């Protein structure tokens, strides 16, 4: 059975290569045409350095977000602290893509250390959206993986790796009109991804089609001993067996008129937030209608703690960030600013100069807030309640999904269907389309952009944003999310939701 699956997989990948293979020439043509305006790729491999390689992804070009280790290009994380830092080791995801025959063409722009939703805070300057096309207005491509999304949208590469901690792959995908996938936590190794919030970070994939997403995912979704939070082989096998045991979902038959017959899609009412724009609501309704026409049952569901996820997310993410960024003192690597004579005496002040001058304002803001919520007095008022909310949100997802959470059960087969449960949920990726770059004043209002995306990170569940139309020339996307480990059904449903033109 395993052998058959592998053969099928290999065949599909080979077929994928014959679909719209982008030659190296086209890639660099697009880079030259768009990168100066979009500022999507701060570091690019010269075309002469790129060698053809064999493998299932032979002929594919990819970009990696600047927080993913990919020497010899610098891993800047969009920060002055690491502006000329080159990693001594390669990220697992990058080396897997290269071994599969894909070629890296450059690193992509991002918000500094992944902290932002607008790709505005980078040491390389802001990134811009390809849309609106044929216009002088420069819109934000979203963040923090804005460079990756813009590069894919402008056809500068076939696929791009990003990182998604609170929506950083899905939000830019929806604003740039491309697909952005955040797999289940632990599917893709984080070894080589500079940590922002370790328990929320996931390597994500951006591409112009769900097929390309899936082919890339099949390569990078593999066990890695060097990351202890990466799913083991046995866990992956268990999940596969559990999800395959669902008899109520039809097998993937592309020619059937109702390819998603039996699939139940939940529409969580708590995502109907006041900030939701009319265009986003419209897209949501149309998306539901489309899925219904393909055989899905659409039912309302409730996730009562969704409104609490945003403040809880920001508490936990910032706490972990303050911890993960403590290592940047300029001593063993990175930019260093020597302390002035007066500060030399005090041990902790030795780092103050480097960190004050190396980090941008948003990063400093988040480190300070994160330090505060972890401090002795604030710990039980902010950090602990946020962890409890996280646990509650996970439980609520477990309650609505028909597939049991493999981490919470010893079952090897999914029980016969409970009529109240769903296989996936549908909701918008963003409350509105991309704003003009540089117009956001209050940094905290920008946090609201994440309200639709953070819950998937809090629960570790797989979620994808697929492009679903334009509003005033600006793209918007819809999200599909499912139970932990059920990446397959997310990709399957997304495939039918995305625009059918190749």
């Amino acid at each position, binding site marked *: 059975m395993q052998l058959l699956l592998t053969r099928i997989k290999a065949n599909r990948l080979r077929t994928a290569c014959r679909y719209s293979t982008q030659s190296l020439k086209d890639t660099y043509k697009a880079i030259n045409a768009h990168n100066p305006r979009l500022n999507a790729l701060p570091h690019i491999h010269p075309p002469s350095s790129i060698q053809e390689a064999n493998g299932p992804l032979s002929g594919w070009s990819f970009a990696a977000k600047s927080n993913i280790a990919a020497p010899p290009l610098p891993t800047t994380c969009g920060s002055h602290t690491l502006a000329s*830092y080159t990693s001594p*080791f390669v990220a697992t995801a990058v080396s897997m893509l290269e071994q599969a025959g894909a070629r890296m063409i450059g690193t992509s722009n991002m918000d500094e250390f992944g902290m932002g939703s607008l790709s505005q805070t980078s040491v390389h300057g802001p990134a811009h959206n390809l849309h609106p096309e044929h216009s002088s207005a420069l819109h934000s491509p979203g963040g923090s993986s804005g460079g990756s999304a813009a590069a894919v949208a402008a056809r500068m590469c076939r696929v791009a790796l990003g990182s998604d901690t609170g929506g950083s792959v899905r939000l830019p995908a929806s604003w740039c009109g491309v697909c952005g996938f955040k797999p289940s936590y632990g599917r893709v190794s984080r070894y080589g991804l500079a940590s922002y919030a370790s328990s929320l970070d996931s390597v994500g994939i951006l591409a112009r089609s769900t097929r390309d997403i899936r082919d890339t995912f099949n390569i990078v979704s593999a066990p890695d001993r060097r990351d*202890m939070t990466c799913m083991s082989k046995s866990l992956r096998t268990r999940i596969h067996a559990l999800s395959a045991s669902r008899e109520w979902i039809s097998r993937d038959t592309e020619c059937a008129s109702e390819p998603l017959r039996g699939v139940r899609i939940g529409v969580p009412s708590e995502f109907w937030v006041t900030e939701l724009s009319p265009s986003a609501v419209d897209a949501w309704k149309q998306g539901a209608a489309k899925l219904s026409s393909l055989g899905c049952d659409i039912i309302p569901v409730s996730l009562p703690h969704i409104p609490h996820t945003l403040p809880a997310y920001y508490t936990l993410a910032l706490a972990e960030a303050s911890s993960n960024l403590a290592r940047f003192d300029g001593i063993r690597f990175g930019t260093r600013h020597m302390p002035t004579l007066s500060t030399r005496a005090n041990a902790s002040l030795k780092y103050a100069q480097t960190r004050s001058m190396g980090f941008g304002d948003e990063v400093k803001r988040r480190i300070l807030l994160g330090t505060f919520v972890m401090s002795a007095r604030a710990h039980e008022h902010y950090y602990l309640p946020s962890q409890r909310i996280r646990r509650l949100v996970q439980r609520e997802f477990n309650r609505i999904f028909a597939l049991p959470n493999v981490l919470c059960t010893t079952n090897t087969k999914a029980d016969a269907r409970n009529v109240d449960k769903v296989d996936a949920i549908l909701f918008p990726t963003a409350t509105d389309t991309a704003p003009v770059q540089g117009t956001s004043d209050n940094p905290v209002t920008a946090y609201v952009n994440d309200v639709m995306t953070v819950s998937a990170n809090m629960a570790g569940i797989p979620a994808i944003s697929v492009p679903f139309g334009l509003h005033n020339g600006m793209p918007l996307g819809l999200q599909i999310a499912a139970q932990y480990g059920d990446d397959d059904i997310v990709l399957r449903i997304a495939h039918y939701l995305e625009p059918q033109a190749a």
Partner: protein
Amino acid sequence: MVDTGDRGGVTVPTVDVSELSLVLYRVLTTTGFKATIGLELHVQLLAAQKLFSAASAKWNEPPNTNVNVADAGFPGALPQLNPECVQLAARAILALNGQIQQRSAFDRKHYFYADQPLGYQITQQHHPIGRGGYVDLGLLDGLEYVKRIGIHQLQLEQDTAKSIHGVYPGHVLVDLNRAGVALIEIVSKPDVETADEAVFYVRKMQSLLRHIGVSSCNMEEGSLRCDVNVSVYRDGEDRLSGTRCELKNLNSLKVIRGAVNAEISRQIDVVRRGDNIEQETRGYDAQSNTTFVTRTKEAVPDYRYMPEPDVPEIHINDSWIARLRKMLPETPEVVMARMMPQYGLAQEDIETMLGEPGCTAFFEQAVVGRDPKRVLSWITSEVFGQLAYRSQRLADSSITVPQFTQIIDALSSDAITSAQAKQLLIAFMDGEQRTVDELIAAHRWEVISDDGKLRVISKQLLDAHPKEVARYLKGQTRRLNFFVGKLMQATNGQAKPQNASEIMKELLEARR
């Protein structure tokens, strides 16, 4: 030691005059007060690699040569738990009669310092791998009474890098070799009450952990570090009522004893004066025999503990624990209690052997059918001497039990002399593979025990040195040594010294 005689309600010590001043001082100043002492031992594990990285954990290597991207905190590097460290920690817990926790987890303890490259230490503050346990102290440990010191918890944690001050003015040198090496922190319950008990507790811990191969527990090398918490209380009050001070950087048993006594005295003085004890961290100055403040309570950092998100929980099941228990060697106490009567050896002898992992087992195999005293002496003088010379451990040496016993047997049967036996030992420890018999033949060492032959040679020597014979007969009996020496020379050292001496004496006397 101290004999307190009761004289009409007043307790007066009667002591050796030489100890009078010290003991009297201590008794007069401490009467009416008692101390509550807790110890935190940081023990470096004997694992080949670090706790969360594959870099070598070897001690004393050139600076910054055993460093991995995870140790140095490069972005994107992640911790990878070393299972050998978990095993060693679990072994220690079993040997200390504690409970291995079936679920344990790691935390991050945050502070900025030159020796903390990640800005945090990975430790097990809230969910340690071991809880409970105890160490029993008694007569064999140097204590006149029996006492059980409880253990609160045993946790796995990372060691820091080494930061060296004062070499380059205005700079700190950082060596990351030690960063991330596995430690177990053993936190005792505050059951200890005197400096002696504290020292014996540490010694006992050293002996135990060495014996089971968990650590070399060497305070000079830094593989055992000790912090002590001390508080005092008036006799009759709650023993936990005093404010405690922490004594850090105590780098030898002698220092521990001195520091604890000095601190107890200081705290009693403060309380007697009517002042409050400030909760502080203090160091010890051996010269002045006093403790001094190194950090006040206000300066204690807020560590902002956070669960370590990069390392999942450790789950340990019963069968793993059962297998580990089977592999655990006997504790030193059990070994001591068994071997003393069995072989008629003294406590010090067994202790010496217990200090070298694998030695008691070696002894017990070698001693079968042989004189325990001789086997012991050859192990502790000759073998240990050779190990010290080579800076080797017995476990790494090439000497085997059969080789060793061959030497002993050859010596016992007079086939070789002591000097030759030593040579053979050296050869075996250098890797010699031939048997003792083969070596004796190769060296042509067959001992001349044939008295007849010796007599002939001796007579020849006496004839050759008439002056010396005359001197001997006149009364200079020490001239015997001259002739014995000559006989040994003539026989290339192959005559047995006792035989040579007896024969010479006999022949000399015959010439009177």
